[in-house]
């Protein structure tokens, strides 16, 4: 279609008077509400404009006599009159009501070739003087079934039978730009944003967003006071369970208690975010910015508490957080000298309105102080537990950046220095709330651990300081060579006050002291990373580029197993478009991390802990010597102007050559294929497939002190019958298909998206077989074949009929199905038992994500003006 013909056709369509007459009653009501706003806005925004300025654009600077004259008639109403403003229209595809397409922002790549001409994504052009105003609004009536089958269905969204509104308002004149967007208005996940720009002077944004986070619907809890810091269980339940005759009886009583006293509870919280941002441009070179974000998070989340090695209870953790983030910054840009400097000050705070959670022990009505309460049985220990929740904190950061361009050899130099501190000074809770842990009985502490006066300090007095220096030089000395040098030095200092204690109370049950008095202490861990990066880019023929890189990363740590580590990385990448029909990107890196020494017991010997609880042969993966390889390929082919085929391969391996225990290898592989096809002017199809595999192998040992496999006494070698090896394997397949068809041009449009993703995990165990008196792995090292196996389907068709320029009606359907199989779901009960019916150490609420199957229908009316 010729551009001019298209324009003419649009003009005709705009002149059509049939639009309003076709509006249904609801649309008329909506428009009638909006029209006064339009009129008001036009009046308000019609600032007296200066006389038409003779900008170069207006005059065209077409002073050369050989430029042909323009025929205003042939050029349309805009030609020849300067400057003609075109009435702004909203882009109809802008997703102002995402409820109908919850994954619309994550659709598979569009069919339209990235570098080919694209039709303008709007329609309806008005040419009239004055301010430009556009508004689109939608109202959606939604019906849902199955949304509460599992909280996973609504993990971050609100899917209920409801009415929601979408809004997109735009107002523009020569001086101002105003935009108001609202999504899902009326729902729990609504958000809105208002933006005002006064070009060259001011940009202001205000935003509000609600983000629900649903963990569990209809869980069952024995606790009262959900959402507060005090979780209580009726006394009669505690008395009854404490009186259990044996573990078999305990399981029976616990189940009965849940049946009699358990209450349904939804576990969820919601983030309410409010933001304000202002950028001022007092002069062309200077920009000043201010940004403030405020967030409150209120609700509950499922987590755990314990009273020893045989007594775990799932509890509803209270969430009542307030956090703020304020930033003030400036930027000065000397355009003529190519010099930029900017600075920013950041102040962030976090306040937890519930500083600790006190929760009842289902199995104890009164405190006890059995010497080995931690491991004695499930009924020993405290009647209540006290967990310290996240402490309040403050963070400050000052950052200064300078950039100098236009240096000889097309060189740019940039440097950033930053310094910050994080402080936390919350009041400490007592060692324990177990009032039976007082001096006297054997094994008890030398002081009353529940007395706040015996805390090692009243407040935490914790502080971190960070420093960053970043320096980068880039240069293009010749047309075929790019050089980059980069240095980064980041240091995290820990100035937290050390406390020295004789011992502590584990799980409010048992006092555990150190090998020597006042030897146990918190260690102010810290680290420093220095990275040096050199890259050389060589431009080859056919618009291709080869880049060679070397990076050295040195890491120093305090109070960790490895004090110094060095990682050398060699990188090579190839990027280019050697032919019009292909686009290639490839990279490969090889890295080698070496360490000076692995001091496995450093963490413990510093505290004079003699009986190291860790296997001495194990190497923690984040510090161990490591060899890493990464290969990435991405090729995009354009065999025809309407077809794009793209393939990607990623292969990565991490191996730990010096590790006999811990992670031995960590590999991942990915292959993907995408297809986009414009099957004519009215139909677009896209499809995608991705296959991933992740493999982690690791080795451990089953051992305890004095056992045959004790590495410090009886089994000092690497080989032992109690060793075990695990291999975790995940396979993930993702398939997507989409179609967009204009069944009747400019009238009836059909879109459909279908996705399917499947994760298939398994864990295989191996263990050498030994006689049972030396082999603690005297069991069947079975394979667990159901490890987070999830199948997720999504089908989302939408049919839209457009009534002229201003009204459209859409019918949408969403089907989502989520199936999960996991060994943690197989045989799950709120009170697990052994095959003999004995209590197996835990009382749960039933908070796992389970299957869901959703059907959502929506009728959406969209009006634009």
């Amino acid at each position, binding site marked *: 279609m010729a551009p001019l013909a298209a324009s003419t056709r649009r003009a005709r369509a705009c002149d059509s008077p049939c639009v309003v007459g076709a509006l249904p009653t609801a649309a008329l009501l909506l428009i009638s509400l909006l029209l006064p706003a339009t009129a008001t806005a036009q009046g308000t925004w019609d600032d007296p404009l200066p006389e038409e300025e003779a900008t170069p654009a207006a005059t065209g600077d077409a002073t050369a006599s050989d430029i042909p004259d323009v025929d205003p008639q042939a050029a349309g109403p805009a030609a020849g009159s300067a400057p003609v403003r075109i009435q702004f229209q909203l882009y109809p595809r802008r997703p102002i009501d995402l409820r109908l397409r919850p994954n619309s922002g994550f659709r598979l790549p569009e069919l339209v070739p990235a570098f080919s001409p694209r039709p303008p994504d709007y329609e309806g052009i008005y040419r009239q003087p004055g301010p430009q105003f556009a508004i689109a609004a939608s109202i959606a009536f939604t019906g849902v079934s199955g949304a509460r089958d599992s909280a996973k269905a609504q993990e971050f969204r609100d899917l209920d039978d409801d009415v929601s509104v979408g809004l997109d308002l735009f107002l523009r004149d020569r001086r101002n730009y105003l935009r108001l967007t609202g999504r899902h208005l009326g729902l729990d996940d609504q958000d809105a944003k208002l933006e005002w720009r006064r070009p060259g002077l001011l940009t202001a944004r205000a935003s509000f967003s609600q983000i629900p986070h649903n963990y569990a619907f209809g869980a069952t809890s024995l606790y009262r006071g959900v959402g507060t810091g005090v979780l209580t269980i009726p006394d009669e339940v505690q008395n009854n369970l404490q009186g259990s005759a044996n573990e078999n009886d305990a399981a029976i009583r616990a189940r009965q208690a849940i049946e009699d006293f358990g209450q349904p509870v939804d576990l969820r919280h919601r983030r309410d975010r409010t933001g304000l941002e202002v950028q001022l441009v007092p002069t062309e070179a200077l*920009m000043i910015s201010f940004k403030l974000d405020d967030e409150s998070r209120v609700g509950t989340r499922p987590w755990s508490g314990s009273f020893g090695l045989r007594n775990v209870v799932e509890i509803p953790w209270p969430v009542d957080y307030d956090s703020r983030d304020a930033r003030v910054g400036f930027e000065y840009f000397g355009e003529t000298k190519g010099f930029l400097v900017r600075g920013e000050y950041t102040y962030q705070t976090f306040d937890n309105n519930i500083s600790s959670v006190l929760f009842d022990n289902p199995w104890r009505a009164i405190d006890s102080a059995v010497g080995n309460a931690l491991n004695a049985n499930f009924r020993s220990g405290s009647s209540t537990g006290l967990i310290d929740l996240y402490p309040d904190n403050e963070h400050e950061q000052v950052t200064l950046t300078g950039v100098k361009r236009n240096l000889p050899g097309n060189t740019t130099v940039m440097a950033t220095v930053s310094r910050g501190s994080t402080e936390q000074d919350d009041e400490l809770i007592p060692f324990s709330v177990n009032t039976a842990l007082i001096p006297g009985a054997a094994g008890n502490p030398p002081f009353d651990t529940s007395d706040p006066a015996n805390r090692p300090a009243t407040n935490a007095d914790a502080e971190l300081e960070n420093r960053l220096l970043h320096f980068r030089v880039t240069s293009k000395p010749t047309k075929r060579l790019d050089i980059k040098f980069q240095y980064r030095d980041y240091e995290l200092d820990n100035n937290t006050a050390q406390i020295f204690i004789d011992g502590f109370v584990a799980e409010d049950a048992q006092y555990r002291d150190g090998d020597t008095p006042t030897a146990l202490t918190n260690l102010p861990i810290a680290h420093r990373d220095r990275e040096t990066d050199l890259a050389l880019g060589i431009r080859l023929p056919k618009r291709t580029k080869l880049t060679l890189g070397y990076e050295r990363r040195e890491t120093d740590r305090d109070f960790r197993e490895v004090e110094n580590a060095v990682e050398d990385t060699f990188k090579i990448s190839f990027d280019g478009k050697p032919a019009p029909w292909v686009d290639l990107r490839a990279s490969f890196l090889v890295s080698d991390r070496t360490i000076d020494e692995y001091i496995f017991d450093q963490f413990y010997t510093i505290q004079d802990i003699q009986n190291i609880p860790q296997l001495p042969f194990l190497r923690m993966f984040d510090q161990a010597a490591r060899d890493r390889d990464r290969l990435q390929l991405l090729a995009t082919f354009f065999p025809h102007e309407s077809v794009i085929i793209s393939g990607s391969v990623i292969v990565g391996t991490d191996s730990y050559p010096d590790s006999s225990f811990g992670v031995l290898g960590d590999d991942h592989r990915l292959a993907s294929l995408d297809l986009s096809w414009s099957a004519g002017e009215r139909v677009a199809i896209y499809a995608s497939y991705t296959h991933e595999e992740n493999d982690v192998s*690791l080795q451990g040992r089953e051992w305890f002190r004095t056992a045959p496999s004790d590495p410090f006494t009886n089994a000092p070698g690497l080989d032992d019958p109690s060793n075990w090896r695990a291999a975790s394997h995940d396979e993930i397949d993702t398939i997507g298909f989409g179609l967009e068809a204009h069944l009747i041009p400019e009238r009836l449009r059909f879109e459909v998206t279908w996705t399917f993703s499947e994760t298939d995990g398994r*864990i295989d165990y191996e263990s050498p077989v030994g006689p049972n008196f030396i082999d603690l792995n005297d069991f069947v090292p079975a394979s667990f074949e159901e490890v987070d196996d999830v199948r997720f389907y999504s089908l989302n068709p939408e049919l839209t009929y457009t009534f002229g320029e201003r009204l459209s009606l859409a019918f949408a359907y969403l089907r989502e199905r989520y199936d999960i199989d996991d060994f943690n779901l197989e045989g799950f009960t709120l009170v697990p038992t052994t095959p003999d019916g004995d209590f197996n150490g835990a009382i749960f609420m039933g908070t796992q994500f389970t299957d869901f199957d959703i059907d959502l229908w929506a009728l959406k009316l969209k009006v634009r003006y």
Partner: protein
Amino acid sequence: MTGPIEFLTRAARALVLLLAVALCSGIFLSRTTSGQESSPPPPPATDTAEAPRTSPAGPTTEATVDLADAHANVPFVGPQVCQQCHVDRYESYENSPHGLIDDPRTPASRNACETCHGPGGNHVMGGGGVGVGGMRTMDRERMPVAEINQVCLTCHSRGIVALWPGSMHESRDLACTNCHAIHGGNEKLLQAPSQPQVCTECHRQIRAQLMRPSHHPIREQKLVCSDCHNPHGTVTERLISANTINEKCYECHAEKRGPFLWEHPPVRESCLNCHEAHGSAHEPLLRVKRPLLCQRCHSPGGHPSVLWAQTEEEAAEGQSVFGTRRFFGQPAQMLFMRSCTNCHVNIHGSNAPSGKLWHR
């Protein structure tokens, strides 16, 4: 896979050595040839009828060029002329931020279309057509990436773009037009309706991760890529728009910022030691399933450490960890559900005097 990887590793190391040699040669050659290659001047279009309607020989080098010099002495024609033929493009430009005529920084307040595309005198005289008159087409097939980017960087050289030189995307030869459609109708003039859709066209692994069961609310449109990354360049790896990965995470997860009395060292160093930020098969965004996650660093004494079945029959029946027998008297609750974190609840750090093992 180990075999091929080892092979590839050896091959790549050899290739690096070879390329280092080639690099030295390349530097030498580039010095000897610099100045010999330059963008040819726009072809004079003297005969409209014979003017090529398809791409003429455009610039063939990837060198940085002086945009002004390339179009010296070519007259401007004005936007009214441009829209005669390019009506769609003109309208979209008018509707875009570039069309705000009262902002002295926009193309609209300068030479409109010709601010970016260059003066159109020769183009018009040549009768129009792709590339006629040396117009800048912003097309990677006809214009070097550096030249495309320089058009944009002429104005967009500050703010979030200030650290573009030497950034990952600049180094990998991405053009601004890879992600932005200057005439497009999307927010921020992106090539696609949303950031994730743009970014995942190349970052396929991220796209797949976002489709996994446990993910940040990106598919729900509550987060976008630029909430954590600045694709135009930062001072931190992976284009994280904060000084460290953790500082970025703390912006939303401020409760985990601490510092704590009892720190968990790998947590303090990097959240990514345990979490897969974009998506994972294992809730909540864990790299591997617990207890294996913890056992990557810990093989503690006194804890049952492997998921087990007591008999072969049990193993064949699905290995319900809830119905398993005791192991040396220890119940299985250390392994099922949240596994280690059933007891070590404050795993991100504890502020309790008795929180040494993160129980409290």
